């Protein structure tokens, strides 16, 4: 087996350029070949692409928040779905999806969004069940679980008794629900697990899925991020004063603006299909882009606040560039984590500055969370999907809703409008609780 030679990579005396590893087939290149979206800015790639280009946001005055005791007023819910009942048979969703009751009963809203996004993704990638239900295809997912259903189940348990809880309540509510459901219902046979690094979770999923394919363990990986994006998943962040108190949906999420006051919650589901170079060639499909490498590093600083100097994120970016063997000057666009919190955006600005200033390069940097709000475990996969669209269609999404740029970010190249420009190399950053940071490198394919 050639793969046993992979250990040579670690040996200093052996020349191991990235290209030589690929040419000797010691490592495989990895491509994104399919996307599926249920998001606040669209429920298919066409709508999402248009809203990214035109910088149309999905934020609205959210009816469940309109109570005097709730200071937060806006959110970015998904459209076309109604999932606010504890009884999944009350839910409504777009006509094109048909989900049997026996499947739905084990799902929270997040798993339903992911399920629909998965159907889109396999269709988009032109996969048949024989392609995905085999030992060489795995699935990594991330979600924060369904606090909505978990809360109801606990309430029922305490008031009506232990044995009156729904038999599948646990499966539908806990953090692994998205991987449980998708792996079972799509008959996935390869690697599967969930990631729980909060807002970095699905970026971790992409990174480790890249490893699975690059190292030859899997030929194809689905990466899924999904969140409920409802009252119970969003409002707990109000207690830590992380949410925007803005009442105007047009101003609520404005990363890098001097007046930003917190993030806007969102939910939905995104599925990415990652495939090896060999599979792309065998199936004759045209990828969106290449996943060229990734890196991660931790702040080792605070359980909930990013390091003020952005040290963890800086290391993550450096490692990602090194893994992809890309010089900082080659990066054209950075999709920032940029959640629109006062501390987080500055810390990310410092990390980016530290990596790119020495070479004098100024990649465009924008946060699409200005449009979608912050999707927590959904964010990394969703924004990787956005970057894939931007690379395929040749545009760089602007950073919306900025009226007055924060002076602390003024030296960065933050486009206010979408640019009709083809990027070659794109970086996608994600940071989560505990100071976990992930940076993913994507490259245009011709």
């Amino acid at each position, binding site marked *: 087996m050639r793969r046993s030679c992979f250990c040579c990579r670690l040996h200093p005396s052996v020349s191991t350029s990235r290209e030589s590893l690929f040419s000797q087939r010691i490592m495989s290149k990895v491509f994104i070949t399919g996307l599926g979206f249920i998001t606040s800015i669209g429920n298919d790639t066409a709508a999402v692409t248009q809203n990214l280009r035109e910088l149309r946001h999905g934020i609205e005055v959210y009816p469940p928040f309109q109570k005097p005791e709730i200071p937060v007023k806006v959110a970015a819910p998904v459209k076309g779905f109604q999932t606010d009942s504890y009884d999944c048979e009350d839910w409504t969703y777009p006509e094109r999806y048909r989900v049997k009751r026996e499947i739905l*009963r084990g799902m929270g809203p997040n798993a339903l969004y992911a399920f629909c996004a998965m159907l889109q993704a396999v269709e988009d990638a032109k996969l048949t069940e024989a392609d995905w239900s085999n030992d060489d295809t795995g699935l990594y997912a991330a979600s924060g679980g369904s606090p909505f259903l978990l809360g109801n189940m606990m309430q029922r348990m305490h*008031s*009506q*008794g232990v*044995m*009156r809880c729904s*038999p599948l309540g646990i499966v539908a509510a806990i953090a692994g629900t998205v991987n449980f459901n998708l792996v079972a219902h799509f008959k996935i046979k390869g690697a599967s697990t969930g990631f729980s690094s909060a807002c970095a979770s699905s970026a971790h999923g992409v990174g480790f899925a890249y490893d699975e394919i690059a190292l030859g363990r899997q030929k194809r990986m689905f990466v899924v991020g999904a969140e409920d994006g409802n009252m119970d998943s969003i409002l707990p962040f109000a207690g830590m004063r992380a949410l925007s108190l803005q009442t105007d949906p047009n101003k609520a999420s404005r990363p890098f603006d001097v007046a930003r006051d917190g993030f806007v919650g969102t939910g939905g589901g995104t599925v990415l299909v990652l495939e090896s170079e060999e599979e792309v060639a065998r199936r004759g499909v045209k990828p969106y882009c290449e996943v060229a490498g990734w890196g991660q590093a931790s702040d080792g600083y605070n359980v909930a606040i990013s390091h003020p100097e952005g040290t963890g994120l800086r290391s993550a970016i450096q490692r990602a560039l090194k893994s992809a063997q890309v010089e900082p000057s080659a990066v054209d666009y950075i999709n920032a984590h940029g959640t629109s919190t006062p501390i987080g955006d500055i810390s990310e600005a410092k990390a980016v500055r530290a990596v790119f200033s020495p070479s004098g390069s100024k990649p465009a940097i924008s946060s699409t969370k200005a449009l979608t709000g912050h999707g927590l475990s959904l964010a990394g996969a969703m924004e990787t999907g956005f970057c894939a669209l931007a690379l395929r269609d040749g545009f760089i999404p602007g950073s919306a809703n900025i009226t007055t740029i924060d002076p602390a970010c003024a030296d960065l190249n933050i486009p206010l409008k979408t640019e009709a420009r083809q990027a070659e190399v794109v970086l996608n950053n994600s940071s989560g609780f505990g100071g976990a940071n992930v940076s993913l490198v994507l490259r245009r394919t011709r």
Partner: protein
Amino acid sequence: MADAALNQGGSATQSNNPSKAFTVEDESALREALKRCSSAAVEAALQFRKTHDATHVPVVVIGVIERFVEPGLRPKLHAADDDLRMVEDLGIDSLTMMEIVILVEDVLQMQINNEELRNLRTVGDVKTFIDCKVRGLPPPKPTRHLPIEQIASVMPIQPPFLFLNEAAVNNQGAQGKYRISGQEFFLQGHFKDNPVMPASIMIEAIGQLAVLALLEGVIPVDEGKVVDPKTIFFTSCEGVRCHRICRPGDVLTLSVKPKRAKMPLATFEGSIRVGQEKAVIAEEITLTYGFMDAIVAPAVVAQTTAPIQAEEPKASAPVSAAAGA
């Protein structure tokens, strides 16, 4: 365990006390709980809760089962066939069974524990079980399904002379199946170039099912006794008629029901069908039997030193002829 947890967590909301009035709030909660059930089920549930008249229970139970069955399979339920199997015919898995139980508990204000559920295979089992619960009667002995391994371990008759592949036993009697494989030794000579299951062997098969029914407790036994497999023998049969020639590939569906039993004689009526076709009728098959002391399985004590003898004495019983065909 399950009961203990339930009693701790759930007793506060239980209202088995019939003196408690059925309030408007109760009615709206009941209608909400049954909102996806037929109006007949809702009405029956309302009547039951107001009057505690158990005759309303079957309609409620069927209504709740129907609500959890895929729409395409629901017409089957309207055929009112109590032999419909929950899993095989209605596609109800164990988790859906739980959902049915939780809703029935909620609507009829009763508690059902896990062990009671295990043997409810058919719609009839479920209806009977819940009816008994509601009336405060002990639930019937559940139907026990015996695969071939278990049949062979219990029976004094052994292959190649055992003509049962599977069996189900309950209070009313026993059902069994036997597929004529074509490899049976006697088919070589019965008849020349024309294999036909001998009628005498078909009577034998009915007799064997009756032996199984005896051993599995279909007839009453004295306290502390069980039927001794070594004492069972054929004595007589009456009113035997054969209606159909049975050949290799046919699946015989056998059935016996006890008619009367008084030591040492037990009389059964029996039949064999192939699909819907009558094959054999035996108005009476009588077996002789005797008792032996039941060996009470010792209560499991932690770290017992002596190895426990096989607690199933029937398993090691020597082969003995049962039905002399």
